Structures are given as C-alpha cells and as structure tokens.
C-alpha cells in the first residue's frame, strides 16, 4: 500500500497490520440470504489483502439496500442521496487524490435515477472502484421494477410483468467513451467476486464492476438457475482477465476473451442469453480526469502574489 498522503499529520510511522475484522463495522442489517453480505465480506477481505489503512479508505454510496454498505465498514464512509454517489466520490477524489475510494450503488441508484452520472463518471475515468450491486429490483422501497428487471417479471409497479427488455449495464458502460475497466461477477461465487474486486482496485482509472446480487425477499427465483447450475454460467478466461483458478475448477464453461478487445467485449456483453462472469474490458492507457486536472499545491505566499497581480490587472 503506497501512502501518498502529503497533508499535515500524515507523517506518522505506520507499522500496523490489518486483518479482515479491522474493517468490520456494526452488524449488517440486510435480510438473511441477501447477496450484499457476501459482497461486504469480499470488500473487507480485499482491504485486508491490500492492507489499506482504514482512515485512507472511503466507501461512498447512494440510497437503497446496497447503499447501507458504508455503515457496515470500519472505514470512512459517505452515505449520500439516491443515484448520486458518483459526483460525491468525484469531488472527494478531486480534493483528496490520496484516498482510496469505492462507490457502492444499486441498480435503481446507478442505472435509473443516477444514469446521467453513470455515463459521465465512466468518461471521467476517475481512479476509483464503482460497484453496481444489481439485484434487478428496487428492494428498500419494496419491490418495484428497476431498469434491469427482466422483461415479464412482475413487481408492485408492473404487476403484469416488466414491460420492456431490461437495460444492459455492461453494454451501456462499454459504449461510453473512455470506459477503462468493465467486469461482471456474482455474489454467490466468492472466489470470483474477490478476484474481481482485487483487479478492480488495482486498476488505474474507474473500475466498473457489475455484481449480480440475489434478493431472496422480492425476487428469490431470479438467479437460481445460475446459482444451482454452474454450467449455465460462462467464465471469461484470459491471463490478463480475472484469474481465479479455484473458480475455474468449478465453473467449467469457459470462454476465452482477451480484455483488450473492445469489439469482442461489446459483442459478448450484448448477448444476454448466458450469464457471463469475468473481465470484459480493461485499458489503463486512457485519460483519468483526476490526473488530467491535478494542479500543484500552492503556498499562501504564492496565492497572494497571484491575487495581487490579478487585482493590479484590474487596478484603476
């Protein structure tokens, strides 16, 4: 872990070692069987694996079941407003590039009310991890259709079944200029989930990870076929992709995919007949907004000199 903090008070010696428990907040209040529990644990494991100082790590969320995430972490957190975690996180990174920022949002959050920010955050490519916890339903508000709800699936707002084909978060993201990391994983494949989070964290730029997440209360049947039949899930495999050998033993349906191939990534993302887990695309050569916009710090004297020159320019 490279501590790049250059602010007052950051110079202390740091010989701490962190275990998974060091990142555990209060007991999570999600329903029993909710996929969010597994994602929370994977995140805590990741932080321990990467030895991230808890005070240098931030979880930023929107509103919804999954957005309670920061409350259950023992790091800094900002539980924001519905759909708008990404602007908050962007602001945090612009002011504090030293912080490690993770954004956690649900499908209503990310793909519906926050869709504008989603597209632009992908283009900004700010160096952070954005997790879409996609259970295909509005949970906290009690069972309303979300943009990713499968067509025909009944809900409280569309009782005859979803009217339209579901929005495809992967193909949308892969269509945005400057997208630099697009992966999909699932809450019920812990090894793959962890490996994906780790790859996302280590990526330079905005790492977008869609996590298929079960909601046992509102849509219990939804991912059951994939959960029970590993063969119905296809792993994208490549030495540059998500490497999880243990998972590959269990999930034998493999699809070799080179994550530098954007055309192929878009093509396979379009095909939603099979659940695919893995890294669709990665490109670290793309511009990161936080790098492009970084300005050197200035002393008080320097600032005052510039301001005096500006005032002189407008002198009477």
């Amino acid at each position, binding site marked *: 872990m490279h501590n790049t903090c250059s602010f007052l*008070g950051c110079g202390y010696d740091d010989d701490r070692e962190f275990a998974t428990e060091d990142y555990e907040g209060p007991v999570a209040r999600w329903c029993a069987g909710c996929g969010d529990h597994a994602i929370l644990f994977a995140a805590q494991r990741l932080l321990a694996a990467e030895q991230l100082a808890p*005070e240098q790590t931030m979880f930023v969320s929107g509103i919804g079941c999954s957005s309670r995430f920061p409350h259950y972490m023992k790091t800094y957190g900002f539980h*924001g407003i519905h759909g*708008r975690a990404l602007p908050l996180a962007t*602001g945090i990174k612009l002011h504090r590039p030293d912080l490690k920022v993770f954004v956690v949002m649900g499908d209503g959050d990310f793909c519906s009310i926050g869709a*504008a920010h989603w597209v632009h955050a992908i283009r900004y490519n700010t160096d952070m991890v954005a997790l879409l916890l996609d259970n295909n339903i509005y949970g906290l508000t009690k069972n309303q259709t979300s943009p990713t709800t499968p067509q025909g699936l009944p809900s409280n707002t569309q009782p005859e079944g979803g009217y339209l084909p579901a929005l495809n978060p992967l193909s949308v993201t892969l269509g945005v200029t400057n997208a630099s990391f697009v992966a999909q994983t699932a809450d019920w494949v812990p090894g793959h989930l962890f490996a994906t989070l780790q790859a996302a964290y280590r990526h330079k730029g905005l790492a977008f990870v869609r996590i298929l997440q079960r909601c046992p209360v509102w849509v219990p049947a939804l991912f059951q076929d994939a959960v029970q039949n590993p063969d119905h899930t296809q792993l994208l495999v490549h030495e540059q992709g998500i490497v999880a050998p243990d998972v590959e033993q269990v999930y034998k349906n493999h699809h070799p995919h080179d994550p530098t191939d954007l055309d192929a990534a878009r093509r396979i993302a379009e095909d939603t007949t099979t659940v695919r887990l893995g890294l669709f695309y990665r490109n670290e050569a793309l511009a990161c907004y936080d790098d492009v916009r970084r*300005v050197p710090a200035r002393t008080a004297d320097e600032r005052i000199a510039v301001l005096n020159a*500006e005032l002189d320019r407008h002198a*009477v």
Partner: protein
Amino acid sequence: MNTHEASPAAPRKKAAAPVVTRVGEHTVEVVSDSGEGAQKCGQGFGAISARMGNGAWTVEIIPAEIQPPARTPGSTSGVRIRIGEGPVTNWGDAAQLVVAFNEQVLLSRHRLNALADDAVILIEDMWATHEDPAIVQAWNTAMEELKTRSYRFIHVPMEEQCLTLVDNARRGKNMFALGLLACIYGRDLEKTKEEIAKQFRKKSADVYERNVKLLELGIAWAEENIDFRIDVPATPPASDMVVMNGNLAIGMGAIAAGMELCAMYPITPASSVSHYLSEVFERVGGTVHQAEDEIAAVGVAIGASYAGKVALTVTSGPGIALKTEFIGLAIMTETPLVVVDVQRGGPSTGLPTKVEQSDLLAVLYSQPGDAPKVVIAPATIEDCFHCMITARRIAEALRCVVFVLTDANLATGVTPFARPRPDAKWLAPPLDLSPVPEGSLPYQWDPERGLSQRILPGQRDGMFTATGLAHDEASKVTYDPIVNQRGNAMRSRKLAVLQQTLKPPVVVGGDRGDLLVVGWGSTKGAIEEAAERARAEKLKVSTLHLTFLSPLEPGLKEIFKRFRKVMTVEINYSDEADAPFITEESRRYGQLCWMLRAHTLVDVDCWTRVPGEPLRPGRILEVLKERLGD
C-alpha cells in the same frame, strides 16, 4: 424626409469651439444588435472613466439569444454607463446620451422609457438610405414614433467611416463608437488605449492596432462633427482602486478565501464566474470542475468539501432548484459548502439574462424538512469580493451551508471600489489530518451551541459514515425521537449563535421618522439615492439594508418601531394591495417583506417590481412619496 441635424449629406462645418457642459454626473447608453460589440464599447468606457477617477456604474442590456434576428427590438444588446464626479451606486433613471447602431434597438430603449426626454442620440444613419426599401420604411416609422420626445439626433455615418479601415464594419463600429464617447467626455487617450489592449489581450497585435485605429477614427469624426462636450470632473482617487464586475469579484473572492474547487454547470448569468476562475484558478492551486449537470456540480462540491477545504458551487435559480436535494444532504451531514446564486428572473427559465431578487425564499425553504442555512446578500460589487471570505469562514466554523445571493445586476455591472489587500488570514488553513483524540465523535455537538469539530477522512481513528439519515453524535443512524429532536436543534442552534455575533444594521438617515425602507442585495444604491432625494425634499425617510438574511440581523423590531411606516423595496413579485381580488388575507408580499412580517410581527409593507432591469431611483422616490402621502 428627415429634418434631423448633421445629416451626412450636409456635413457640419468644424465648430470653432464646441460647447462644454460641466455636470456632476451623466448617463450614457450604447446599444447595438447582438454581436456588434456595444458591451465592449460601453464597459470599456465605464472602466476608462473609473480609471480616470470618475464614479461609474454600468449595467448590461443582454438579449437572451446569442444571435437574435438583427434590427429588432429583441436583439438589443448594450450597456448603460452612469458616471459621476463622486461615487455612483446605481444605474440612475434615464440615459442622457445614447449611441445607437440602428433605430430598432433605439426604439426598444425608448419604449422602456430608458431615455431622458432631452437625450442626445448619436445614431448610425445608414438605414435611412438603405437599398432595401423595407429597412428605409422601418427607419421612417421608428423615427415617427421617436418624435414624440424631444430627443436631439446626430446622424453618424458609422458604417461608411469604419469601412475606410475594415472590411466588416459590424466588427469595428464599437471601437469607433468608443472614439465618439472618448472625444465627447474627454477621456484620456492613453488610458483608452490601455483598455483596448486589455480587451484584446488574447488576440494578436494586429487586432489591437486595428481597434486603436478605429478608436482614433471615432475621435477624429467627433472632433470634426460634434458641437458639444460633456465634462464630468474626475478626481483621481485618494487610495488604490480596482474596477471589475460582480462575477469577477466573486471569483477573486473565492481565491482570496483560499478555496480550491469550484464545481459548476453553465447557466446564465452565473457562468462568467467560472470563466474567470478557469483562467486563473489553477495558478493558485484551484480547479474548476464543469460537471455533467447542476446536481452533479453541487455533489462534487459537497464531496470535495467533505474531504477537505470548503468548496464552491455557482449557479442561478434553475440550478438552485436542481441542487435542492444535495444541499439538504450537506446540511444534514454538516458538510460546509458555499453556494453562490446569481439570481435571474423566474420562475422556471424566466428571464435568463435579467435581474431579479426572487430566490430568497426558495433558497431558505426549498429543502424538505428543517434545513437551516446561512444566507448573505452582497449589495455592491465590492461586497461580492469580501463576502466570499466571510462565507467560507462561516461555512467552516459552523459546518454549514452558506448561500451568497447576488444577481444579474451585480454580475455584469462594473464599478470601481477600494482595492482589497489580500491577507494570508483570509485563506483556508491547510488540512489537519492528525489522528483524532480518543473518543472523538463526528458530531460532538456543544449542547448549547450546536457546534462541533469536523473530522476529515485520513484522520486516524476518526472513521465514521456521514449520512443523510437521522443520526446521533457518532453518526450512527437512529430513528429515536429524542435524538432526532436534538439533531434538528443542533443544526438550527448554530444560526442563533451566528446571529449573536452580528451587529444591528445601520440606519441611513434619521434613526426615527415617517418611513423606513428596507432592502437587500443589489438595490442598495438605488434605494439610498431615492431616500436621499426624499430627505432633500424634507421627507423623513430612512433606509436600512440587510446583508444577512439568515440569520436576520439583530434589533430589527426595535428599529422598525421607531418609524411610522416600514416597507421593503425589492425586485420580486408581490400582489398590489388594490389589484382585483387582492384582499388583506390573500395578498402575497415581497420575499423579504414576508420574512420581516413573520420575524418582527410589524406590519411591514412592500413595493416590488419584476421589470427585468434594476430599479430606478426616480421611480422608487415616486413610490416613497405615494406611501408617505397615504
């Protein structure tokens, strides 16, 4: 047939000596079609006058479109410049001299009663003899309408003159017009050239040279053909002065306050704050972030503020509407934030380029739930600069949201003011990321004051999750009624603490009398001028101008009681008491008036208008007299 003077067909002989009239102040308008550069000319004239030591106040006349159809009243683009021997605090009543690039834009000003009855009008006369008969017809019709006043017309062959130097006279008339004004008002040639150099600093030397030639051509033409001069004596100021518009002053104030992030989304009339900052901010370690929308702009500012120094977002009414939910989050999480609202006419898209003071109640009450915040309103361009330093400090000290309400009048108006002396104490201190003392909580409210110390990410042992949900001192989510009551009280109490530090407002004029006029924001100069004229007529009128609107400045009720009548004058909508259906029960008052009535239980009245232009002191004076006569 036209009978106006100085037609190009019969050029006037060079007058032996022009008649010089010495006056204490004079009001000029330069009006053209959009895109012909009248604003550069007029703002330049104002700045040059200020540099020479005249008081000056300029107001831009801005169409809502970039290229509206030419030669229509709707395309009028220009500036009014009021200059004086002493300080000038507002745009005055009527223009006494006008440079008009065509008769249609002149007509628009005439119809708004913007011109004095005896105004001198320098008008481009190419339209009178244009090859298109429709244009000649329009000219003749306009001239008939304009005859109803005793304007004095001087025909100026601007096009013909400019074509001797440039191929496209549309791009040159403004500097020629500046030459006319420079001659008539005896402006210093060197200072005028300096102003041109400043205006074209981003262009090539050729462009500068060409514009100076156009200026000199205008001066030469005026010397030859214009038989009068106006002398507004200028006293070089005793102390250093600067001259700029309010949006620039806001930008400079943000720098002086040590802010490092301005997140914005383009919106008229606020955008030029970010244009200025985009030019300069990086040199002081700052960033302008143009977000994908108004909501993201405030979100980025809140994120940045939460993690570091107080950040800024700049917008106008429609942007305020969009930012509402996020501002509630900043208030609930006690994240300091400065929001500048450059007010324009509303509701909805309203009058995008024109002044109004209609956002006060929206800013105060737009969040659901109780969402206390600080609201301050600069009254002058100088205030625009200094209030940013105040706003940043209050935001930090109180962990609160501070709104700065300016308006389109301050945004584009240009006036000289005392040069600020930047001080390191104005800057935000560096972030202190030391480990927090054991047991520190993120909302460790002082139970009386509601104040608490911010904990920043990066501070060891301080980890917490900020949340818009109801929470306790530890930021733990809770729906407990006692905790929720306390949280509300703590966020509100901070305003009362701030109010204790404020001084009672200054009453200008007698401290008791028949009428007290209360205002806020950019109307200060016009209101005070009107009251001064009233006092000159032996009327017992005083004024009071509020800078702090939330919390309100202390002692208002005591002051109000000393006057027979109290009224506000504002640029927002209120029902007139005698309008159809309006009764004492149904009448809706001006926004400050409404607040003052609730706050003081005094029967405060109001006179408010939404003309899309600054209030004129002469009109306010008429109202004061009417009210005193009641």
